[in-house]
């Protein structure tokens, strides 16, 4: 084996790829070759480090220097200074990383515990040997050669691992139900239809460590007595699809998938199925209906998938992040896993932090970490000196958490008590410039769009709720609207067919719980103090900035603006229809919306 003295790791996740990281890799390799250093320095294509806002990311080992926002023009400097002369290029370093420690010491990584993301940003996901070198497929070997299926399920049960897709159902119990179900054929499915807007942790795991999912599915199959698996992945994730295909082919070639794995009687085959842009297919029964080649509509439960799932056979469905925890639990044991996180929610959770936050990206934290630590210590706080208003978790099924609950430890049950939910792990930060009524409307619009239409409470109920919210944001809110919203929400929660329908009113209910005054302000005062709802804003001319050029007077369709040339103009609020034409026409920026 060839040993290199330095390694240059370049992220090729979706975010960095779209910022041209493949071209960086090419230029690095060419430059290193030109300096005749290619015997000593290896360039490795990895996946996501989590620092998506600062991409493309290049990390140089053994120094552990994290270079951020690297462009093609920086490559020569990195080669000449760092790789040739050993001098770290300080101006490219990310944050306060001094570049002489391992990158785990940077603020962004200090509080993180990387279990699900253990290989992301470390190995090349397209080379199976790199996964194997990091203990890959050892857990599968251990399971097949030294454990019975019952012992496998016991171990997962004992670890207390709960489904990371959002609802937090104990994974071991799910497996046990399917193992006990009678049937000649059973299926193992992986839910990689990550549809929550703002959540991309599953994509990063698929892109960065696809073999861990394959290994975990094989372990699950052994546990429940299955020989066939399906990964249902979003078609919108082309890089993940490509790497999964490569990984499946490599595993087959080495005999880690297929017949008689590790020389035992256990056989397992895996197929990839692409989604086609329907959010509801993330719901377990809808996902199975979709794999069957039909409209992805949910089915009533019971019968539960553990008894009658895919093709009417016993089936388990696990989320990507859940599965990525399995191999390491098998290797390190349930007791080790329980030392991380909280008693009720052991382990870690990966969050995709986005929105109004400095360090947008992917973080993995032990359960029980507080929101404040995630937002301020890891996320670096709110940009532009703005004030934090709320954190949204759980996507369209979740809710908003306000400032007063920032110190609540994050775990499944506490988030539900707060009227939100863990969800798949999207964490969107909102500041004082975001209007909570508008956010509720945004999520309802999503639910209306994505409702499959099978059951009336969801199909009609969400549409009515959206209609009311739209009216409120347009300044046409009426007394009684809030009560009607609450009544509709209750009905949908009680009567909708599937989990997605039942939880669709959550964004409204949680914003009503914490930000009722904003609704009232919109309805009663016809004002939006965040300045988002356009119809509720007034257009005002700042007299000191107005040069009196009359450009706004000429474009105003209702002749609401008056004033003499070279004197400040005035907008008559009664006549103004808020079209915004004056704001665009003003060359001095003297017109504002307030």
């Amino acid at each position, binding site marked *: 084996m060839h040993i290199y003295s330095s390694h240059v790791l370049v992220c090729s996740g979706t975010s960095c790829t779209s910022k041209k990281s493949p071209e960086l890799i090419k230029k690095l390799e060419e430059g290193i070759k030109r300096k005749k250093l290619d015997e000593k320095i290896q360039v490795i294509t990895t996946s996501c480090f989590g620092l998506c*806002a600062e991409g493309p990311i290049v990390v140089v080992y053994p120094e552990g220097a994290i270079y951020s926002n690297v462009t093609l023009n920086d490559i020569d400097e990195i080669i000449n200074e760092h790789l040739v002369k050993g001098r770290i290029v300080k101006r490219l370093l990310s944050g306060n990383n001094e570049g002489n420690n391992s990158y785990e010491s940077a603020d962004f990584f200090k509080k993180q515990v990387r279990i699900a993301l253990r290989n992301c940003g470390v190995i090349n996901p397209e080379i199976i040997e790199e996964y194997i070198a990091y203990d890959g497929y050892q857990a599968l070997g251990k399971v097949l050669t030294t454990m019975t299926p019952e012992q496998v399920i016991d171990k997962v049960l004992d670890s207390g691992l709960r489904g990371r897709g959002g609802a937090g159902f104990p994974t071991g119990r799910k497996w046990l139900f399917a193992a006990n179900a009678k049937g000649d054929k059973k299926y193992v499915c992986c839910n990689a239809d990550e549809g*929550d807007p703002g959540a991309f942790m599953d994509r990063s795991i698929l892109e960065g460590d696809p073999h861990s999912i394959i290994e975990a599915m094989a372990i699950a199959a052994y546990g429940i007595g299955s020989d066939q698996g399906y990964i249902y992945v979003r078609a919108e994730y082309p890089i993940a699809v490509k790497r999964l295909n490569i990984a499946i082919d490599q595993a087959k070639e080495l005999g880690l998938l297929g017949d008689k794995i590790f020389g035992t009687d256990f056989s397992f085959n895996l197929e990839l199925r*692409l989604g*086609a842009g*329907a959010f509801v297919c993330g719901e377990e029964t809808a996902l199975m209906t979709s794999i069957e080649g*039909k409209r992805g509509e949910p089915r009533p439960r019971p019968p539960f998938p553990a008894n009658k799932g895919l093709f009417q056979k016993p089936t388990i469905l696990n989320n990507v992040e859940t599965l990525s925890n399995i191999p390491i639990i098998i290797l390190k044991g349930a007791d080790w896993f329980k030392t991380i996180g909280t008693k009720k929610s052991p382990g870690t959770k990966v969050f995709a932090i986005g*929105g109004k936050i400095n360090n*947008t990206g992917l973080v993995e934290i032990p359960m029980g970490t507080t929101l404040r630590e995630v937002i301020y210590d890891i996320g670096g706080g709110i940009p532009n000196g703005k004030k934090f208003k709320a954190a949204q978790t759980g996507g369209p099924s979740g809710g908003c958490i306000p400032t007063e609950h920032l110190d609540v430890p994050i775990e499944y049950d506490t988030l539900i008590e707060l009227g939100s939910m863990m969800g798949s792990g999207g964490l969107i930060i909102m500041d004082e410039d975001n209007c909570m009524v508008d956010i509720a409307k945004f*999520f309802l619009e999503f639910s209306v769009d994505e409702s499959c239409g099978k059951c009336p409470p969801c199909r009609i109920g969400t549409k009515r709720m959206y209609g009311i919210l739209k009216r409120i944001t347009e300044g046409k809110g009426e007394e009684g609207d809030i009560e009607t919203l609450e009544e509709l929400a209750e009905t949908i929660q009680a009567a909708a067919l599937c989990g997605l329908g039942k939880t669709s009113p959550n964004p409204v209910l949680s914003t009503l719980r914490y930000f009722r005054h904003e609704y009232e302000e919109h309805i009663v005062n016809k004002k939006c103090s965040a300045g988002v709802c356009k119809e509720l804003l007034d257009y005002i001319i700042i007299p000191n900035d107005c040069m009196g050029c009359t450009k706004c007077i000429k474009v105003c369709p209702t002749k609401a603006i008056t004033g003499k040339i070279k004197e400040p103009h005035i907008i008559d609020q009664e006549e103004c229809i808020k079209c915004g034409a004056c704001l665009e026409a003003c060359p001095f920026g003297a017109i504002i919306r307030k």
Partner: protein
Amino acid sequence: MSKKCQCGEDKICQLDKVIKEHKDMAGALIPVLHKAQKIFGYLPMAVQKQISEGLDISLAEIYGVVTFYSEFSTEPKGKYQINVCLGTACYVKGANDILDQFKKQLKIDVGQTTSDNKFSMNACRCVGACGLAPVVTINEEVYGKLVADDVKEILEKYLD
């Protein structure tokens, strides 16, 4: 019922090949529709009919599936497909203003195609590049951290 083909490269023939490869697969319809859309660019009635005959699934069922999933289209799409991300992270960072600007510049609404068949525009839900919010993709190209004023400049690149 499958049509005999002598041409070798023609699209109908390619589709026939795809259908044959998938005929015995469980739940073959959606994978076949994906491939058919790749070949033809969209799924007109004639294509759906061919799949119906090849896989022995009723045309009504196929039409039901095609119209259920937003990825499938029964109308031809423009040369450049613009996807404005309206995921939460992009939305809170002003994706709506970007969308409005595209509408204004192209004079089309979401889901429509310009009369010269050059641009189609869609609003999508999260491409997963939230670090770059707000994000727009045009075919394979990703544009991130946009403000409304960038839109005109981006579109000019495609006006050859």
